[in-house]
């Protein structure tokens, strides 16, 4: 069964550095999402992406964050200048769209900012 994949599984970075988290969606899926989960807290929506544009973003998704689909396959989340409070598990999710609202989640990338 096709799955969403994410790389890396764990990223450690210093405060102020840029990080790029990568996601490979399921091949026929058209809608892409990033969520994050700070340790001990709930899973929170960051951004949704469709047709090479952001569809919706949360207040968490400020100017430090950006998303793109540079080569038609990978879907990336970039954090320009990481802060300690960006430490979290970041999940990519994708969905087929149409009448299917089911979002398929990747295994997550654990980001640790020191």
């Amino acid at each position, binding site marked *: 069964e096709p799955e969403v994949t994410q790389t890396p599984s764990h990223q450690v970075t210093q405060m102020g550095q840029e990080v790029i988290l990568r996601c490979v969606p399921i091949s026929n899926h058209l*809608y892409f999402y990033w969520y994050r989960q700070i340790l001990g807290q*709930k899973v929170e929506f960051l951004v949704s992406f*469709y047709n090479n544009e952001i569809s919706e973003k949360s207040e968490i998704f400020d100017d430090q964050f950006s998303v793109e689909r540079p080569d038609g396959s990978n879907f990336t989340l970039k954090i320009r200048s990481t802060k300690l409070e960006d430490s979290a598990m970041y999940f990519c999710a994708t969905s087929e*769209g149409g009448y299917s*609202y*089911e979002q398929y989640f990747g295994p*997550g990338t654990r980001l640790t900012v020191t």
Partner: protein
Amino acid sequence: AQRVTQPEKLLSVFKGAPVELKCNYSYSGSPELFWYVQYSRQRLQLLLRHISRESIKGFTADLNKGETSFHLKKPFAQEEDSAMYYCALSGSSSASKIIFGSGTRLSIRP
């Protein structure tokens, strides 16, 4: 405000006992309601959604619009049901984000 509330952080029951994980929601409009499950060391996966009205792995959930609830039930718990369970909702369009509850850890004792 759009919100999902799961009042129990941890629920521990004996194998064979009934299970009910509570979920209440707040949403203006007609949301889609879901239960997601995360087994140890595995990814989040959809367990069931209210519009399909299916029973998955013996679990059912009924949407009660009057009480704005979507409780998850299973009549006889099994050890393999131990996992983190998240109640969630989304709007009724393809690009809608998912709003998650804080999750309930279900622990089944042998």
